[in-house]
């Protein structure tokens, strides 16, 4: 399946547009607002009365259920967000200009940063402390799921075939009806793929969001995540193993009960039928589909659903305006509004930082960011050297690919925290430099995206092209240079973009590792944010987040986006 690029690649003429600038300001403004709010709420907050989670594995089923529930609730919100935000962005030209850059920047904000600045805010929002913590955790999971789903949906909406859209207008489908009959089905396969990626990705942050302390506010929610952090605190290897086993089971159940049926169901929405693709199968889906009971049970809902599709009588559907004459007034008004908003935000932001952050702080953060940047670059390079050849070899063998794919998916969901014991012990015993040897943790979860995509690319090499290569006896290094590498290059770029974004995100966890009372720290922006979060210094948390987002966005715009266009133009097959 063709995978979406996880960054905005719409207009590439300019590196940064005015709207990007506004988007940056809006998000910095949001962070500042949250940070400000948290700072003021901070004092009166008493420590959460802890009901310490137990390391008894008998609690694990309950913990797993709670964690799963949180992820599902977050997924529902992510879907709601996707359907509204992305639809608005795709259908409204004015909104699109700001919503797309906004999403692009939002994606680059480290998710754990969101947790740091929102947790206190959310806890104050809810009357019972625990409920507030639940809000915060769910919000954190939401931020790890929603952005790429919304992006995929937006990109799908933009590519709905014109003839189908005309047909739905010609037969006078209401907007609501054509959304559910045309837009959503068309976007469904990509969206489900992204939901799976989001679910995998959010495991990583569940661990972080269930047990977090900001300053002296400590939140511990019963769940697999807090179980893991407790196990690490207590240096309990057995508990860590239990946690790993639990996760394995939960991920398997997810796969069988939720995603496989969804993928099998979504197969009918595949627009282009590439030959040679075996329809995905799922026993759960087959059971559900064949069951009469299920049909009876769902029929009333289906009926109500169909009722919502009823047209409202004599409501005229507007034709597209003849010449897309830009309504100048709306444009001007929009621009003016943007300037006012930007000015207010700028003032708030400057005000927030004015008396507490010095230029030196900014310099420090920038320098630490550079350290993290170097780590990301080196790690992506190493991961590429390892996984591209393997991906090509696997992808050109369909049977192997079918076996490797689910394994890689599980590994992508594997939270790096679980490997702390190994890394910390090894580093301590051999007295290694944490600056170098903690780094692999960053890419542990994200390197798989490179593998996924390269496998997808290699299996998409047309049989004719491979036969031609064989016919001319192209082999060895020549084969790699002329056939394999160019063919997978566009896919590799997509995977590497995801991996690079993910590694930045992971740095907050990966640059500081602990095992019991052993704390290791590497110099980097991730460690900086983690450290300031512990200290509860909201000014510096926000500063760290902003600098990190800045790095991610600049790297995307200056490096990945041009590379993506180059790859698409030159190496895209068919």
């Amino acid at each position, binding site marked *: 399946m063709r995978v979406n690029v996880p960054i905005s690649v719409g207009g590439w003429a300019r590196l940064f547009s005015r709207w990007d600038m506004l988007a940056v300001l809006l998000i910095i403004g949001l962070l500042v607002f949250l940070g400000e709010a948290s700072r003021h709420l901070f004092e009166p907050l008493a420590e959460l009365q802890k009901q310490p989670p137990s390391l008894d594995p008998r609690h694990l089923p309950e913990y797993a259920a709670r964690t799963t529930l949180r992820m599902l609730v977050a997924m529902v919100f992510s879907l709601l967000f996707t359907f509204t935000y992305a639809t608005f962005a795709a259908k409204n030209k004015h909104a699109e200009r700001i919503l797309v850059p906004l999403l692009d920047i939002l994606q680059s904000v480290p998710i754990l940063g969101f947790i740091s600045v929102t947790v206190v805010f959310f806890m104050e929002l809810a009357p019972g402390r625990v409920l507030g913590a639940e809000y915060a955790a769910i919000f954190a999971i939401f931020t790890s799921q929603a952005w790429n789903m919304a992006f995929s949906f937006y990109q799908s909406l933009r590519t709905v075939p014109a003839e189908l859209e005309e047909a739905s207008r010609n037969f*006078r489908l209401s907007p609501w*009806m054509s959304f559910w009959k045309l837009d959503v089905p068309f976007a469904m396969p990509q969206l489900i793929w992204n939901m799976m990626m989001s679910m995998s990705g959010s495991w990583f942050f569940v661990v972080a969001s269930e047990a977090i302390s900001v300053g002296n506010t400590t939140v511990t929610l019963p769940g697999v995540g807090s179980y893991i952090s407790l196990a690490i605190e207590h240096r309990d290897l057995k508990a860590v193993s239990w946690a790993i086993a639990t996760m394995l089971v939960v991920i398997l159940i997810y796969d069988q009960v939720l995603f496989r049926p969804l993928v099998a169901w979504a197969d009918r929405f595949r627009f282009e*039928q590439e030959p040679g693709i075996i329809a995905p199968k799922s026993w759960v889906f087959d059971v559900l589909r064949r069951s009469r009971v299920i049909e009876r049970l769902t029929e009333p809902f289906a009926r109500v659903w169909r009722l919502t599709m009823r047209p409202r009588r004599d409501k005229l559907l507007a*034709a*597209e305006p003849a*010449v897309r004459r830009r309504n100048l007034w709306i444009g001007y008004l929009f621009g003016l509004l943007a300037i006012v908003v930007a000015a207010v935000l700028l003032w708030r932001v400057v005000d927030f930082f004015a008396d507490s952050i010095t230029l030196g702080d900014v310099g420090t953060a920038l320098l630490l960011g550079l350290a993290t940047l170097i780590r990301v670059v080196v790690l992506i390079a190493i991961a590429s050297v390892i996984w591209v050849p393997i991906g090509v070899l696997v992808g050109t063998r369909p049977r192997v690919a079918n076996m490797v794919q689910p394994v890689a998916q599980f590994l992508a969901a594997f939270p790096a925290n679980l490997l702390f014991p190994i890394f910390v012990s090894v580093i301590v015993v051999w007295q290694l430099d944490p600056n170098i040897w903690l780094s692999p943790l960053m890419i542990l979860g994200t390197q798989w995206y490179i593998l996924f995509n390269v496998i997808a690319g290699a299996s998409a090499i047309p049989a004719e092209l491979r036969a031609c290569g064989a016919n001319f006896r192209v082999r060895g290094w020549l084969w790699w240079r002329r056939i394999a590498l160019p063919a997978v290059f566009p896919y590799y770029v997509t995977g590497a973009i995801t991996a690079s974004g993910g590694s930045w995100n992971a740095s907050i966890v990966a640059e500081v590792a602990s095992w019991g009372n052993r704390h290791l720290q590497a110099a980097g922006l991730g460690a900086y944010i983690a450290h300031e979060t512990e200290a509860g210094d909201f000014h510096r948390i926000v500063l760290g987040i902003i600098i990190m987002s800045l790095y991610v966005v600049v790297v995307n715009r200056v490096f990945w986006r041009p590379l993506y266009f180059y790859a698409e133009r030159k190496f895209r097959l068919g």
Partner: protein
Amino acid sequence: MAATPALLDIHDLRQSFPRADGGEHLVLEGVELALQQGQIVGLLGRTGSGKSTLLRLIAGLARPSGGTVTYLGQPVLAPAPGIAMVFQGFALFPWLTVLENVQLGLEALGLPEAEIRKRALAAIDLIGLDGYESAFPRELSGGMRQRVGFARALVVHPNILLMDEPFSALDVLTAETLRTDFLELWGEGKLPIKGVILVTHNIEEAVLMCDRILLFSTNPGRIISEIAVDLKQPRNRLDPQFRDLVEKIYVAMTARKSSPVAVGTGGEKTATIDTVLPRVSANLLSGLIETLATAPFNGKADLPVLADELHLELDELFPVSESLQLLHFAEIEGGDIKLTDAGKQFAESGMDDRKKLFQRQLLAYVPLAAHVRRVLQERANHVAPKSRFLDELEDHMSTEDAEGTLRAVTAWGRFAEVYAYDDDSGAFSLENPS
């Protein structure tokens, strides 16, 4: 005839789009059309004649820049009930079964479920799709898919059926079966429709199906001629009267720009720097020259006969023959194409001489090619970016046309070895890679 009000009335219709340089790109101009009950009207023209645009204006899918479309006395400003469309690419929803696809329009009307089902099944039966109700479009052949397209349009009982080249995506045999079936149902009065507008670029199809044919010019689209077809259905393609009409249309469509009939079809005799060039490969040009030079044509051919011989449709034959005319390898007049001396010489030459000959004609008769070469020669390093020429062209034509024209001139220039183009750097140069 005049007593019954027309189903559809179009008056002085105009459609244009804004261009990059602030001007406007005219697509349709001064279109007058009336559709009477019981008529099939054909809109015949080439790509770029705005006939599909016209169909979308009638369907209410777009709004005109000027003029009016009146349906049953009401101006069409939005998709109107009673006007249904059959699409070139079928436009079926791949995730809906045949039945669900057919039901779609009725669901949008908000009819009771029982009636939706009854009418959908009736339409499926009528159009010959019995037994396919639960199939998905991907399981069907092209012909069956288009039948679903017809059933979906007919089931809403439209007054006017709009057909946008409905047979052009099908193979010859399937298309013919579908046409015959449609005409039969139409002739027997079994179709719940009152009038049909058919967009096509297939001349024989137009003569076979329509009561009236409107010929469109290109850039901008105007009606250049209206031809009434009085032959009785079913029509026979081999009937001399049928052949005469086909010939007559070819003559009208190849009329020279200077002729009093009307403006030509875009195939101007000589190009200027702002002529939109068709994207025709040098191979295709050589192929046509060779075909023309050999028996049975021996240098001169009747276009309909040539089209028949080569299985080419209007849209395919015209760009090639007009490119030949542009390069002065051939002349087109009165529906005939005739090789010039240069053309004959080209046919007899080997590859190297052909390239030289092509180079001569290209530089002499395609001012844009000569212009590109001159610019390259004037520059010290003999290199110029593509954007330089693109910007220049966009002052005279739409962005799309400018891209196409530059590609055409790039391809011809490469063949003639007049200049080279490197896609990586997007630059024209005088050097050939060594």
